[in-house]
Structure formats: structure tokens, C-alpha cells
């Protein structure tokens, strides 16, 4: 079964602050984490504006982009929370997975945490960390089966 590589993950609040960043496989480091996160947010902002302008219906709805070496998946909630996941380029659509990440992990372990103040960076939240790790690991196994079946067609 082909291996699905997941590279890194960013979570931003509506103001563009990076609330959480994790990497599992990153061979090319950014300059510094802060610069890297700011650059990523800047790119997302331009992508959304670009998508709105180019769209024949004038709607936004940027989903993903692919380069020769990675694919960036993007999911934004109604509250302006932005989930970004970078994977290898041969992956299908992971937005549903990002939506699940939001509703089953972020909402469960961050929002429902009485010590957490909305909009703040997520630090010291073991349950969130662990569940995120587990979710990402399960994605690698689940999705590689999905890719295999689409390739068969």
C-alpha cells in the first residue's frame, strides 16, 4: 500500500495568530517558526482574496493547492478558525478529515477545556496533543487505502 506522508499542520485564529503548529516530516525547515507561520498566513490571505476575484461566482471557498512536492489542504470554520495540513501531493481531498479534526478534536479538547481562553495559543493541552497525533497517524493508514482504491479505477 502506498504510504501517505503528512508533513505539517498549522492552526490559526481569525486574527492570523498561529495557535498551534506541529510537524511530523519536514525536510526543509522554515527560517524561524514565527516567520514561517506569518508567511503561511500571508499566503493563505492572498489565496483567499485571489480565489474570490477569480471565481466565476465571486465566492471564496479556497480548498487546496498542489505543487510538485506537497499538497496543502485548507479548512476554515464559520468562526474564522483556519486549519492547514500539508501532505504529499498524491493525496485526495482531506477537507472532510480537517472538518472532523475541528469538530471531534478541537471542539472536544480545546473549546470544552475550561482553562482555555478562546483565541489564545494552545499550549500544555495534553489531550489535544495526543488526540491530534493519534488522528494524524490513523489518517496515514486510512487514506493510503483510499488512494489505492482511486488509483485502481
Amino acid at each position, binding site marked *: 500500500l502506498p504510504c501517505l506522508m503528512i508533513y505539517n499542520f498549522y492552526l490559526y485564529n481569525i486574527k492570523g495568530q498561529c495557535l498551534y503548529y506541529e510537524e511530523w516530516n519536514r525536510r526543509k525547515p522554515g527560517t524561524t517558526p514565527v516567520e514561517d507561520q506569518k508567511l*503561511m498566513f500571508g*499566503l493563505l490571505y492572498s489565496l483567499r482574496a485571489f480565489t474570490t476575484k*477569480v471565481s466565476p461566482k465571486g*465566492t471564496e471557498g479556497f480548498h487546496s493547492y*498542489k*505543487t*510538485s*512536492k*506537497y499538497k496543502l489542504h485548507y479548512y476554515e470554520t464559520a468562526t474564522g478558525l483556519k486549519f492547514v495540513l500539508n501532505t504529499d501531493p498524491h493525496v485526495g481531498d482531506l477537507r472532510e478529515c480537517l472538518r472532523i479534526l475541528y469538530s471531534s478534536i478541537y471542539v472536544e479538547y480545546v473549546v470544552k477545556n475550561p482553562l482555555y481562553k478562546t483565541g489564545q495559543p494552545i499550549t500544555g493541552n495534553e489531550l489535544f496533543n495526543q488526540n491530534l497525533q493519534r488522528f494524524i497517524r490513523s489518517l496515514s493508514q486510512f487514506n493510503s487505502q483510499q488512494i489505492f482504491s482511486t488509483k485502481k479505477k
Partner: protein
Amino acid sequence: LVFQQDYVSIPKLPMNEYLRLASTFHSMYAISSNLSPMPASSGIEVLEADSFKLQCFQTPTGTKFFLTTDPNHNNLDELLRKVYELYADYVLKNPFYELEMPIRCELWDYHLERLFAAENSK
């Protein structure tokens, strides 16, 4: 930006907008390559959104062709390569065409129109 054309009826933006969009895309292309978690990444080759799909093809000389289509289109890669062939045949080989200038070549327009009409009627 040396050429821009719509092949279906969508609201037409002023030329300045297209110029701005093209240079925005050009910088996003560069940044996406910089931000790559893996070394030696190209820039954005495919961009997917709700209502459209954008495919970009960069030649070894840095010329970029990009195509926007409905989200269900596949094989845009092949199509862009054909466009590149048409570009080489009807633009570059045209003795009156100056590099970097806006393209005003009838045969280019004609063949491009035919290519996309064929594609759109599929």
C-alpha cells in the same frame, strides 16, 4: 501578463485587475515554493476551490500558463502542454512578435479558440 482570454461567458474584469491577479499569482507561486516542507518544490501547480480549478504550467524559462476551469476537469496538464506547443508555433516563431510584449497573433488566437472550443464541447 502577455495574454488573457475568457472562453465562456463570465463577468469580465478590467485589464488592470487581470494584471494584478497575474502578479499576485506570480508571488503566491514563489511563496508556496518557499514554504514547502519538502526541498525542491515547484510553486502552485493546481489550485482547487468551490467553483473553479486553476492549473499552472511553468516552462523551463519561467513563462507561466494558467488555465481556470470548472472544478471537475481533469487532464488539464495535457491541455496546457498543447497550449505551450501552440505558443511555440504561433507566437515564438512569429517574426513580428517581441518577447515580453502583449501577444497580438491571429493564428495564436484562432488555434487557442479551437483548442478550447473542442475541450468545452466534450
